[in-house]
């Protein structure tokens, strides 16, 4: 197995296992930490795809900022484990079958996706085979500020709205 393939399966395994831990854990802090591990796996995959800038930005923004926000909220609210808060004990989950059917349906979705992809022509072309990659940050900046300038400006307004919204929603109401 070439080193390229080994790295791909290694990082892919880390990502998938991390994601499975996220949805399998009862303790929300462990879920958040598992997702951070999954993001590191994804970052490795971006490096393999010759996108080092995206890989580093993924760590800085996702694993370094958004997940810290999640962690802060979980810690400050002292989120109980699933099924152990007062409301959960008063309303136990009587309906396990919808969950089991839901799990089966998810597995079915994966199978369907893989089946559909195997029927699509052109899936075995190597990612790096046809054209050379472009990983220069200068090129990224140039395209971002010329072709995608409108989206960039709109995104800044979006972030402003999100900031104002988050602060307003999370403030304590003065009764």
């Amino acid at each position, binding site marked *: 197995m070439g080193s390229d393939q080994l790295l791909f399966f290694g990082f892919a395994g880390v990502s998938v296992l991390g994601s499975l831990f996220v949805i399998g854990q009862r303790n929300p802090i462990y879920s958040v930490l598992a997702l951070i591990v999954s993001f590191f796996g994804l970052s490795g995959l971006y490096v393999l795809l010759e*996108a080092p800038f995206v890989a580093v930005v*993924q760590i800085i923004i996702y694993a370094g900022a958004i997940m810290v926000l999640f962690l802060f909220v979980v810690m400050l609210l002292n989120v109980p484990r699933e099924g152990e808060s007062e409301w959960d004990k008063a309303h136990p989950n009587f309906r396990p079958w919808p969950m089991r059917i839901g799990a089966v349906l998810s597995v079915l979705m994966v199978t369907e996706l893989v089946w559909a992809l195997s029927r699509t022509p052109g899936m075995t072309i190597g*990612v790096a085979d046809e054209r050379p990659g472009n990983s220069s940050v200068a090129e990224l900046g140039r*395209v971002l500020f010329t072709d995608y300038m409108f989206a960039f400006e709109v995104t800044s307004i*979006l*972030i402003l709205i999100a900031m104002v919204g988050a602060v307003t929603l*999370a403030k304590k109401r003065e009764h």
Partner: protein
Amino acid sequence: MSIGHYLVLSGLLFSVGAAGVFLRRNLITLLLSVEIMLNAVNLAFVAFGRQLGTVDGQIITFFVMTVAAAEAAVGLALVIGLFRHRESLNPEAFTSLKW
């Protein structure tokens, strides 16, 4: 590695995220599953961008990340408000609007 490998991985991650949204009874884990789905989409974008040799795939990932950050912030603010109301993060506790 072929483009098929990356797309299968992206599909797998997306399904794991979707399963998390449907199966988990905890609002924080719900938001985390949505983040997993967005990351799966990012991976597909970057893989296709690499195959076509342009940087567009990478640029779209920036926008996806920004939107994910904004959505996580507002979502968590909502979670804080809901938790203050009911002391539970079970989405089934907030069914007052159901008939």
